[in-house]
């Protein structure tokens, strides 16, 4: 099996926000790596730390109140944590680019879309205005927008078209790493499918390493090669698409799948995960998921689980798989 060089490798990333109400531990010791042409899905509920992880990768965490307390972010083999702001400006958009959640607000309302794509090109390439505009138009054509619409303003575009523009801007300088923060959440379901398809074709074609942040397992199944399930700032389960969808091991992952409607059995009741995300200023002791876990034992409240490798890349963070813990996940997998 041929495995490319990892474009991005993150080790033990910790991010905290110092607020009036205390120290919010948004990301707690995350590590993953991603290779050329592959797509990693970062899945989790609202507040799991997905967007914070993404912003940390771009070094865009608002500081204050945010702080990366430890960890390394290796981009193409060099740690970007030591880079200056100026060096980061040169990387952002060129090597690593980001697509934001809401296309309605991530375009500047007073410039034509063509000008905005051209601007993104001119930040990193030494082109004159006309050459940049011509390139912008060809990128627009690639994402399925007629070139003559380059002279129109964002408000003249529909939501799906705007998201195409945003994707065009992100891809303008053909970045090696692309972070897509819920790129289809704000769109209609029909448009979602179109945009997703175009998106994955384009990133495959240019061999981009992509991080797809989403809370929609349908999107994950559609475009991802690897999946990381996040809970309270930690990756609780990580594996290939197949590992996660067919052989999931973590009770939280099970809960996520159980809360999806089942097309084959429409009388089946949806099983929600009880409770809410924990207060990030006061995370539960032991396993952060134990207050909501139906298999939780006394030990789960005391001992924090570590990574347990199931096979190859597939790992899980749950005491149920630690041999010396003696926690049994009774009835796991039966709906």
């Amino acid at each position, binding site marked *: 099996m041929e495995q490319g060089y990892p474009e991005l490798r993150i080790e033990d990333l910790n991010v905290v926000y110092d607020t009036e109400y205390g120290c919010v531990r948004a990301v707690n010791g995350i590590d993953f790596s991603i290779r050329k042409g592959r797509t990693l899905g970062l899945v989790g509920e609202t507040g799991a730390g997905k967007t914070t992880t993404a912003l940390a990768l*771009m070094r*865009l965490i608002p500081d204050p109140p945010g702080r990366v307390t430890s960890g390394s972010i290796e981009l193409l083999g060099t740690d970007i944590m030591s880079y200056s*702001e*100026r060096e*980061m*400006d*040169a*990387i*952002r*958009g*060129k090597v690593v*680019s*980001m697509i*934001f959640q*809401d296309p309605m*607000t*991530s*375009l*500047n*309302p*007073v*410039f*034509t879309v*063509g000008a905005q794509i051209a*601007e*993104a090109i001119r*930040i*990193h390439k030494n082109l004159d205005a006309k050459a940049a505009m*011509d390139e912008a*138009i*060809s990128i627009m*054509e*690639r*994402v*399925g927008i007629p*070139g*003559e*619409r*380059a*002279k129109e*303003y964002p*408000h003249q575009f529909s939501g799906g078209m705007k998201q195409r523009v*945003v994707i065009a*801007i*992100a891809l303008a300088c053909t970045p090696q790493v692309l972070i897509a923060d819920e790129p289809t959440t704000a769109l209609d379901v029909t448009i979602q499918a*179109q945009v997703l*398809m*175009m998106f994955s*074709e*384009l990133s495959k*074609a240019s061999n981009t390493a992509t991080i797809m942040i989403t809370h929609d397992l349908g999107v994950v199944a559609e475009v991802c090669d690897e999946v990381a399930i996040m809970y309270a700032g930690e990756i609780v389960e990580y594996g290939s698409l197949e590992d996660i969808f067919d052989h999931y091991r973590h009770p939280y992952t099970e809960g996520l799948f159980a809360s999806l409607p089942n097309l084959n059995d429409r009388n089946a009741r949806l099983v929600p995960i009880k409770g809410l995300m924990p207060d990030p200023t006061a995370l539960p002791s032991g396993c952060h998921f134990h207050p909501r876990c139906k298999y939780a034992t006394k030990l789960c409240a005391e001992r924090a689980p570590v990574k347990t490798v199931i096979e190859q890349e597939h790992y899980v963070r749950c005491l149920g798989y630690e041999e010396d813990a003696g926690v049994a996940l009774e009835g796991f997998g039966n709906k």
Partner: protein
Amino acid sequence: MKMSSLVMQAVTGSAPAVDLHVYKKRTQFGEVWRRFRRSKGAIVGLIIIALMLFCALFANFLFDYNTEVIEPNYDEALETPSAKHWFGTDEFGRDVFARVVFGARLSLYIGLTSTTSALIFGVLIGAFSGYIGGRFDSIVMRVVDVFLALPSILLALTIVAALGPNINNLILAISIANIPYFARIFRAEVLAIKDKEFIEASRALGANRNTIIFREILPNCLSPIIVQASIIMALAVIVSAEFSFLGLGVQPPTPEWGCMVAGARKFLLSSPYLTIFPGVAIMLTVLAFNLVGDALRDATDPRLKH
């Protein structure tokens, strides 16, 4: 089906050639102009400004400054308006029309230079203060508050009194008195826009601070700045007339409108046209700038399109 063919194009990179002429028909300027000219007031204002500008630029082709505007001619003193002297003559026998025409040059010069310099400094202060924020912002804004706490007329009076009454000090005084207004307005605009997602998106594209302030934020704040500039422009014309009226600005015999009104007030009852004509000139100029400013605000706002 259509989608997948587009994707195929995307993948194979065989996008059709783009006809560059199709989208160039409607330029941004053309678009603003199209919406601007729908306002009747704007056109009236623009005509008045064009007229004033014409007077200002070509005054010395119409009249000879030394013989007609400055030099007394006591034989024709205090004549009523006639075919020869359209606006009559003043107590020194000088043609009032010629003086009003030359007055346009001074008023526009003072208004433009003082507004422009106040705008540039105000925008710079507001931009960096708002964008950098924190302690820097607090300190800068407290200084601005101090200036705002003083009545701007009083501030300008103090500056002119300290430096002496002449045109350059008048311009300096008007600019300094108006910088805080531009700074406040622009800072508020920057604060409203700097946390928008498209600013974050542009940071994610690698844009640095100056690019973000001047290429992303500034164009979003143009309409309030244009409106403010037109109001300040009108105000500057009034203030320069006021100061000259009080003897603190332009000194006679220079044909400044305020200065002319001051000189003519002794003849208010016997020869009212001496005050009316320069007074009307001041009024029309101020009105014109306000009309144009309002129309420009509407025309440049892309959210009010169509």
